[in-house]
């Protein structure tokens, strides 16, 4: 159930009406949990087994941790379990494939079996029984990654780690904790919430104000526009060019890569805006996940603006535990590289993501000291720094989008060798990107912000977005979000 479909609108209206009625009563959390499970089960009811399993294990681990002296053991139990679940569903094929390649290269006559189903005979039986009952669902197999698994697994892990560190109290209510793990607005693509924020809010009864509803609607509208009017639009061009890069010349390949930079930003931040808007309408404040990342003037700045909930997760649970920035220079760079590579792998079990992570790691390693110099901070014009950061980030996206090394290499090679050809990039798309870019610049400048904050400008923007969506976007053309696959 995608946010930008009428089915979701109907679902949300019913859930919201019930939520407002039950707010502050004992039925509030069961209602939210039921709605969240219904939302998640709409993809495949069998996924509910998985989320319930992750939730139960982590809840149990924290319960035992609270009573036990061997807290570390229960933390390890929880973390290992989470990583095994994630590894099984997300990485086993990748791991087996690469181990086999390695064995083959080393001349070892062995091969790790690539298991296509958990228990092939059992899943086949279940699937045929489901089909006989007229249900079009299948037991998730290897090629069928449960939606949002990386998000809710990380969210649940953060709770056990935070409790272990003493950053949060044990949640006494299983239903509230299950609601925290599965809260439907942010379940499938974040922001990856922390117990110190969302779980705490779930435990409080804050009145839902008119401002909450108005803010929620504002966020949802902007997110909807980003996704439907911008991301899905650019996706059409990017998909066309990236499907057969060998058929296109340098201008098209450069523009498609440029367009993908914006597509993935609009897609993911659009989802996040909608998620935050829905949460806000229910009185919950989800964390900011994007802060105009393409205005970043350094790579460090970029990572403080892009997918903030994930980068802060890696900062708090991977980078800092490894020593963070308080070790030797070598250790700092090692931590940085490892964190970025793991971050790349988090996105998917493909080499393209690993290379993407490595590129960012290399970029961060190469520029970290430079960013701290007064020359870079004060002498280099900000627009130039922004352009350089954007160019680097866009280049790295090639590997993210192409997924494979060979395809990415084809694109890069053709960018430099294929010469001129009509890119057929719509001027409308370019105009929209430039308009958003200009808006973001104005947002960060004092005079521009003053104009943008005028009530008339905001109302006009809201009307323009709504009319554009209603008039020029074909109904039923909803495309899934890029980050659902992670």
């Amino acid at each position, binding site marked *: 159930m995608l946010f930008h479909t009428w089915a979701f609108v109907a679902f949300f209206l019913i859930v919201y009406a019930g939520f407002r009625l039950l707010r502050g009563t004992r039925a509030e959390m069961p209602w939210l949990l039921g709605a969240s499970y219904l939302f998640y089960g709409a993809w495949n009811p069998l996924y509910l087994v998985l989320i319930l399993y992750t939730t139960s294990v982590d809840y149990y681990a924290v319960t035992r941790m609270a009573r036990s002296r061997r807290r570390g053991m229960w933390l390890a139990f929880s973390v290992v379990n989470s990583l095994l679940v994630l590894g099984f569903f997300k990485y086993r094929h990748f791991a087996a494939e690469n181990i086999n390649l390695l064995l083959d290269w080393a001349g070892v006559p062995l091969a790790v079996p690539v298991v296509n189903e958990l228990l092939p005979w059992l899943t086949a039986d279940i699937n045929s029984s489901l089909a006989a009952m007229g249900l079009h669902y299948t037991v998730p197999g290897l090629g069928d990654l449960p939606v949002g698994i990386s998000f809710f697994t990380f969210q649940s892990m953060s709770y056990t780690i935070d409790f272990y560190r003493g950053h949060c109290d044990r949640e006494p209510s299983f239903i509230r904790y299950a609601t925290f793990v599965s809260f439907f607005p942010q379940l499938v693509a974040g922001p990856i919430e922390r117990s110190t924020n969302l779980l705490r809010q779930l435990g409080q009864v804050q009145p839902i104000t008119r401002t909450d509803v108005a803010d929620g609607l504002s966020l949802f509208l902007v997110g909807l526009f980003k996704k439907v009017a911008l991301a899905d639009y650019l996706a059409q061009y990017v998909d066309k060019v990236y499907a057969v890069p060998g058929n296109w010349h340098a201008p098209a390949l450069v523009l498609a890569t440029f367009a993908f930079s914006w597509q993935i930003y609009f897609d993911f931040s659009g989802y996040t805006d909608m998620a935050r808007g829905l949460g806000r309408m229910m009185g919950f404040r989800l964390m900011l996940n994007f802060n105009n990342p393409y205005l970043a003037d350094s790579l460090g700045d970029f990572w403080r603006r892009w997918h903030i909930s994930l980068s802060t997760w890696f900062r708090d649970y991977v980078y800092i535990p490894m020593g963070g920035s308080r070790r030797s220079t070598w250790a700092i760079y090692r931590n940085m590289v490892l964190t970025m590579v793991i971050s790349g792998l988090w996105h998917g079990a493909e080499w393209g993501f690993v290379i993407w992570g490595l590129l960012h790691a290399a970029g961060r390693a190469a520029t970290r000291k430079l960013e701290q110099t007064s020359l870079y901070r004060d002498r280099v014009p900000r627009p130039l720094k922004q352009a350089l950061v954007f160019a680097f980030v866009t280049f790295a996206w090639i590997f993210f989008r192409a997924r494979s090394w060979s395809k990415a290499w084809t694109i890069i090679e053709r960018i430099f060798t294929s010469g001129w050809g009509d890119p057929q990039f719509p*001027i409308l798309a370019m105009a929209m990107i430039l308009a958003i870019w200009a808006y973001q610049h104005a947002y960060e400048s004092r005079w521009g912000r003053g104009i943008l904050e005028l009530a008339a400008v905001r109302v006009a923007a809201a009307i323009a977005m709504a009319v554009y969506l209603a008039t020029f976007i074909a109904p039923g053309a909803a495309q899934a979000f890029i980050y659902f696959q992670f």
Partner: protein
Amino acid sequence: MDNKDHHGQEQTGRRAVRGAAGADPTMSLPGLDVRFGSNVVRLSAWQWLVTALLLVLVMSLVPSIWERIEPLEDGADFRIPYELSYDYWLYQRHCRRSAGRGDVLVVGDSVIWGPYVTRQETLPHYLAAATGGCRRFANLGLDGAHPAALAGLVNSYGADIAGCDVILHCNLLWISSPEHDLRKARPAGFNHPALVAQFYPDIPAYDETLSRRIGNVLDRNVTFFAWANHMRASRLGGHDLPTWSLDHPYDNPGLALRPTADVEADKRHHPPLPWSDPSRGIRRQAYDWTDLEQSLQWRFFQATVAALKERGNRVVVVVGPFNEHMMEAESLAVYRRLRDQAAARLRQQGVACCVPPVLPSELYGDASHPLARGYRQLAEWLVRQKEIADLPAGRQVADSVGR
């Protein structure tokens, strides 16, 4: 990955937002930023109210303003352009104009629309010609409008034809198989899914997502959405603006969206060859007819008749003429029984009904569509029928024929 706070500029932004929003209880959480967002399209409740009112105003006014500025060259023999068969706003506009002129409205599927003939060779054209041109007959045929779709079309877009004289065509092709009758799905789906009943009664052949069904209901009930569909269909080649711009990357969308008349090129959409022409490769058919009691399409056809009559229309149903020459003998016998049953039931319900005689074989283009001469013969036969003559408009027709 450094443990740094956002730079000063962002902090300024946060204060500004906080100032606008009032106290924010979770703002002070360590390490977590829950401020409004990274843009200022942030409307207060009052601003949302104003926005909603303005939106309602815009969405109400734009279609009617557009109707005034966009020319509709619906002279004699106008029919909905083939490419705009899914443009129901245009169909509604055509209904309104035709009803306003007092035309006799000829409603039906492609048999009325006329795929094998030009605009000057359709049934409404020859009906007008047979009356000496003293009355206009509006071609309200819509390509592919099977009875389930026609029911939706009349209900959602045909309110303006209340009180008019209507000649409604009944094409029994739509009960010639379980697939045509929508009781069994076809891989290719069926025409005009947006017009059929979305939730009740259940249509077994209709397999669509809940979202699309809700969207279709909204499209049929909010004029603005129908108008938006008109803009996409007539100006952007049936695509939305993004897809159109990919096909026309350097064109100015503003120019494409200019108001111009939607006129169909005066052409036939199929070569005007009889079905029996060897080049067509059509053979006699055996049909898997559906009984009227079980037929979904027949139920929808009756619903259409009932809706028209409830609105005060004077309705004459024309059953056929189906191409009986193209049927195997066994199918033909069943067809004749069903045709007579259909006519009898309509008459029992007080609905005027004509059953034209079958046309000569060479005047059919396929199973149900006549060629130009077939339409002329049919029209000449129809204007002589009592049911047509009994229409108030038809009395003028009869008088003119008498003259």
